[in-house]
């Protein structure tokens, strides 16, 4: 299988080498090789069950919380093997933040949602200031500045998701992982989040899983297309079919499966 090597003129934050993921005996994802360039938005696309969310969760070791999951291969994060026994997953997740499919604010005040990770990670500066800054970064400050004491669950779905982004940004992560962050939102909220992702990409490196191809083409510079093999028993495993610049993947993909998928002719 020939993968188009991405021509990237930037530092690599994270590189995945021969990564396979099992859930019990089930092979979910096989032999993935790819690298995430700094200050880029990298999109993972592909049909359901092809392992793109699984890969995303491996990048900050969240997959370990799923019972029975096993990771083979290597993930290199700025020169460190992420899965080395000396590496503490808590530390990894502090550096590599994550935003989930469904907004999951803590059932506490808006202020406390942001202040919590700041305090827990031992921030030495002015907590209040950093809360405000994080909310500004997530384009939420103007909407919530008068009701910081209110329960976060009183916000709309789109606001809650931006609150979750602000919460992830509050501890200044090196890399931000987003697992279908707009799939539970209406088109207007989605547009706001996409706009936000574009702004954030100036400062942050972002990896986003999405089912929405227009979204991938709008927000990302790099795209990885995942596909599933199906054997006769019907239990195929996911693999990385093609990885390249978003422009190339959408206009001139090297493989037919990619072309069929991005043009909407799946099958």
């Amino acid at each position, binding site marked *: 299988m020939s993968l188009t090597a991405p021509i990237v003129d930037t530092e690599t934050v994270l590189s995945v080498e021969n990564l396979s993921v099992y859930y019990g005996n089930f092979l979910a994802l096989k032999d993935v090789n790819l690298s995430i360039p700094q200050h880029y938005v990298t999109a993972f696309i592909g049909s359901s069950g092809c392992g793109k969310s699984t890969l995303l969760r491996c990048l900050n070791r*969240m997959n370990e919380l799923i019972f029975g999951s096993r990771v083979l291969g290597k993930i290199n994060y700025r020169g460190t093997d992420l899965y080395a026994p000396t590496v503490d997953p808590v*530390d990894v*997740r502090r550096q590599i933040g994550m935003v989930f499919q469904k907004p*999951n604010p*803590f059932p506490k005040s808006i202020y406390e949602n942001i202040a919590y990770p700041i305090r*827990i990670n031992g921030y030495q500066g002015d907590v209040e200031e950093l809360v405000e800054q994080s909310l500004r970064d997530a384009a939420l400050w103007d909407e919530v500045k008068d009701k910081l004491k209110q329960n976060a669950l009183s916000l709309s779905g789109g606001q809650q998701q931006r609150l979750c982004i602000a919460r992830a940004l509050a501890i200044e992560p090196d890399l931000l992982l987003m697992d279908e962050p707009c799939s539970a939102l209406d088109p207007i909220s989605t547009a706001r989040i996409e706009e936000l992702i574009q702004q954030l990409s100036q400062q942050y490196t972002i990896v986003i899983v999405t089912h929405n191809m227009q979204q991938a083409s709008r927000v990302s510079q790099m795209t990885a297309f995942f596909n599933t093999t199906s054997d006769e028993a019907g239990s195929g495993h996911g693999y990385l079919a093609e990885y390249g610049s978003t422009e190339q993947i959408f206009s001139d993909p090297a493989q037919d499966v990619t072309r069929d998928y991005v043009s909407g002719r799946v099958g």
Partner: protein
Amino acid sequence: MTQIEPQNLLQDRTADSPQFQANLPERYRADRLFQAAALLAVLIALAVLVMLLGDVLITGWPRLFTDFPDFLTSFPSRRAAQAGILSPLVGTIWLLVLTALFAIPTGVGAGIFLEEFAANTRLAQLIEINIGNLAAVPSIIYGLLALQVFVRWMEPITGGRSVLAGGLTLALLVLPIIIVATREALRAVPSSIRQAGFALGTTRWQVVRDHVLPIALPGILTGTILALSRAIGETAPLITIGALTFIAFLPPLSPLIEGLRSPFTVLPIQTYNWISRPQPEFQNNAAAAIIVLITVLLLMNATAIYLRNRTQQIRND
């Protein structure tokens, strides 16, 4: 109950289609039949409860309020008119406090460990099944175990048939219930909350302490209170370990160790003792004691319901 008559607007069309026999009147008849059966079941349960309570109230009310609160503040006596429930009431409170003290930290701790920390191994599954089974073991079995362990083996500490041994026995009895209730309350906390915590670089204990426990706490409290209300109604295991039926003194609060090692009695045992006597005056005493016991139980259950409603309110906010 209003019954909407089915208007078969599409009768003409369905009549044309022999493969579908909707037969609505027949199905609505089945509906009404089931409704009536369910209502009957509710009425039977209610009638039994009302009869039971009514009987107890009629028999016990006058005794309870003759020279109120003498009945609550007198020791048991051979003369029914002078007999009160001071020592069993105080004994019940002692046991309640001791049981809570032993069972809540252990039970809630075990529940948290099993649900949040233990890996899902075969051993954990075995433990889970066994705890489920323990919750269903007849209470007299706990009494037999406690008689050997707390009364005989641990006599140098418990002082034998003492309040302390009773508290330990009831703690043992409600422990599985508290563990199961704790686990259920923890399981009801959405896993997205835990993931949110972990993704921010928090440790497992921080996630549990700061996010999971606060959400689960009212549920845990509700389960715990219900478990304790079961404990204060228990008679069999306490008879087994030798709770007395006639106590004319209270366990001293100071020195505490002496109080803990005092013999004791509780409301259900006193009631049992009185009810087995032939004189009608003692029957009245028993009914009055039952009223007191039921009042304590109702208060505890009301607290549990209040806590549960408050959680739902927080979740709906």
